């Protein structure tokens, strides 16, 4: 860590199950600049190459929480716009704009607005060179937040493939076993998406 400017981090030593580990901590301002893409690359590189800071998650969430226009507690950032937050006894996916998608165990994409690029012109806009995807075989699906119109994800999958549930975190194991502070309620670690599609099917 000698390449780091002095005073920007501190390093202590601890023992984990017989393996000596070094601990590093960065000031909140450094993490904030990192998140915003403002930190000089040389500094970022030294962070990448150095020991990882164990208090990162808490600082990260604290910084993100301060940026949000809403008060629900962030349990886990999912993307650069979506967060799993605690709302009463529920855990829901919420956009930075405040739009709420519902239970985090249900694929949020099914509550989003969508556009599928189907025409040659739409495909060529993205792919000017030979070898563009064929919309008869490949769906380029854009998912938008119904609250703010942000493009939250783009999916490129075979035509007819289910919407991909990119990440279903095991929040209770994370908080109780990895962070050592269990959440106030427990939720079954289960994909609830098919309950929604079953409901949609029964409405047809």
């Amino acid at each position, binding site marked *: 860590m000698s390449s780091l400017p002095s005073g920007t981090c501190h390093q202590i030593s601890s023992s*984990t*199950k*017989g*393996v*000596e580990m070094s601990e590093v901590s960065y000031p909140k301002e450094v*993490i904030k600049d*990192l*998140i915003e*893409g403002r930190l000089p690359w040389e500094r*970022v590189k030294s962070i*990448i190459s150095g020991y*990882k800071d164990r208090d990162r*998650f808490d*600082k*990260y969430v604290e910084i993100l929480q301060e940026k949000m226009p809403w008060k629900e507690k962030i349990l*886990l*950032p999912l*993307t*650069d*716009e979506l967060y799993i937050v605690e709302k009463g006894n529920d855990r829901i996916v919420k956009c930075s704009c405040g739009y709420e998608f519902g239970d985090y165990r249900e694929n949020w994409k*099914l*509550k*989003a*607005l969508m*556009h*599928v690029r189907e025409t040659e012109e739409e495909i060529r806009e*993205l*792919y*000017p*060179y*030979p*070898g563009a*995807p*064929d919309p008869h*075989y490949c769906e380029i699906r*854009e998912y938008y937040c119904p609250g703010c*119109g*942000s*493009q*939250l*994800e*783009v*999916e*490129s999958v*075979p*035509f*007819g493939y*289910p*919407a*991909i*549930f*990119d*990440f*279903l975190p*095991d*929040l209770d194991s*994370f908080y109780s076993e*990895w962070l050592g502070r269990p959440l106030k309620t427990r939720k079954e670690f289960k994909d609830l998406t*098919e309950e929604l599609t*079953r409901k949609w099917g029964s409405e047809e």
Partner: protein
Amino acid sequence: MEQKNSKRGIGWGGKTLKQMLEEDEQLFHETGYYYGLKELPLMKEDPLRMEVFFSRLLASAVAGRETARMITASPFVREVGELAVALYTPEGDCVLQSTGIIIHIPLMGEVIKWMISQDYEQDPGIREGDIFTSNDNQIAGMHPLDIYDIIPIFYQEELVGWVGSVIMEPDIGAISCGMMPMGATERFVEGLRWSAEKTGTNDKYSRFFETRIRHGCRFPDTVILDRKGALAADIKVREEVKRIIGEFGIDYYKRAIRELIEGERRAQLERVKTRMVPGRLRAVSCYENYYSKAMVPAHHRVDRITLVPIDVIIKSDGKFFWDFDGAGSWGWHANNCSPSALRGGACLLLSQQIAYTGKANQGTMLCVELNTPYDTYVNPSSPNVATMNQFSVPTNGGALIWNLNCRAFFSRGFIEEVIASALGLAGPILTGISHHGGPAFPPGATGSTPSGGCAIRDGFTGWALFLPNPDMGNVEVWEMATPLNYMGTRLLPDSCAWGKYRSGYGVIFTYLVYKSPQLAFEKLNLCRDEMIHPNIGMFGGYPGSRGFARLLVNADTARLIEQEKPLVHGMGCSGEAKLGIDVKGKLEVSTLGAGWFEGIAKHGDWYQAATPGVAGGFGDPIKRDPELVKQDLDNGLLSIERCRSIYCVEATYDQKNEEWIIDKEKTAMLREKRRRERLANGIPAKQWWQKRRQDLIKGSLPPLLKDMYNDSLAKGKRWPGEFTAFWNLPSDFKFH
């Protein structure tokens, strides 16, 4: 050294290697610790001594690798560095690895374990100075061009370990020249094969081994010199290990190598627990094998798309579980995968993404579990299956796994580790006559792809997930080897994956055929993506462009030279000549399926390979910093049309100062307008679901996709239920 009495083994304390291997596996199974090590006394009592010990061993492996590079004749090795060296325990567990093509590190260990299980100790015997060579992917490996040379290390008449070197060859005499001939659709046309054979004794390869190489492949000098380089590397490590044993003592060595593995196992679990988030991450990969027009046996001429769904489970104990349930069928083409190749892929990914301390070894691999259903694309049932491109899933699916892991890094806050990933690789495979008159040597150097966009910056232009090819080495050296002149390496404008942070730009390599009377070019696409782009974008970024290749034969290059006109260096920007327009001839464009270009090239003809590589963009493109957009415009890498339509940035060109000026007000208006359009025109996902469900019920999709889904519905255990539940279809649904 005399072969010992058959009852007394060559392993530690008179055990046989088989006994040691059984003990190794049993102790891990029973205790969960590598070799049952609940404590790490050496590491605890004197960690600095352990560090010195490790550093000495690691330095020997790295030095061995460099030694091989100085001996080899192949630019793949000397210039690009397509080799690696590793040290193993007597049972074949990796203790440490050099830099290089680390995808092979666990696989050389699998060859050692296979030899032990086949009782090589009895027959053919294992002695000091023996050399074992393997490139048989039924045993272990990525593809037959990667040849493993493995030697035992004896100390005081006990086998204390093994050294293995891997080098990729340019050719081993397969059905056509080159690294991954797509026409090799079954095992028996893959060229020379060594099935963990004893190829030498007393540190010298046998004469028969050299004769087989001389008579069996297109570049025997290269293959033989590579073997000598590999052997030199192995011997260098072996002798250094003996010296280190002399310094530290044999008892310390035996205990310390086990502690290095168990220590790394614990460190890997700890790294996952402190940098990631447990849960289920999900992706799907597709493999498009279009062989109906390829020059292969009639029953291999099949077009097929195969699904390989991927679930990455990060377990609460810190282990990874990669589940490929739902994978479709293997086929008679060059692009099947295997569990061994997937373990190689796991080593590659983990060594670069999270276990990059330089200590990755068997301990890292003990933290990964795989489900590779039998008789599928990732675990073929036929022993005769082709293995030329087992990279297909590690490169295509592996890039997706990289992307998934990055989502867990992002959630945990380690955003500096987030790169949306990229696939590889497009490049020429050729056969014909060289400028020296012999067989034409295939060029390398086109492995480079851009990286995906990062969470905090744009992607890198030179990057490769799976090998160090972004550093192509010296062009002049390649020009000595191949009948091609390098005319240029250019960035491809508008080829990036769009996003708030875009990927790096694709690269196009331009080659002028030099003094070859005939040259045929084969199409190569490791990743098998063609009509279906991989799902590699992240958080609103798009997947990027694919690779392609162009061949111009009967070119009138001589006319241009005579008239002192510009030649071709790229796609034809900035006054350079355009292929097929300024240089006339017969132009063929390939999107890199399987097969050969029709044209036969000769001196003065042209070949171009573009490697955008399908990277992923990061974030919503309309949130891109207009200043970054300006940089791309100023650098000539972004067209104003796409600047407006994708980034929603308005700009005008200032002729006087030769730069683009961003109109901030109009940009804000364009972006607001795009948001409103999305909200007004975007359809609720439920509506899409209802329409698409009806499409599936009516069978309104191409026959190849129906076959693809039916295949996975028949093969999978968990996946079919999830597919039918998502679409609310009967559990026995099939496409007709």
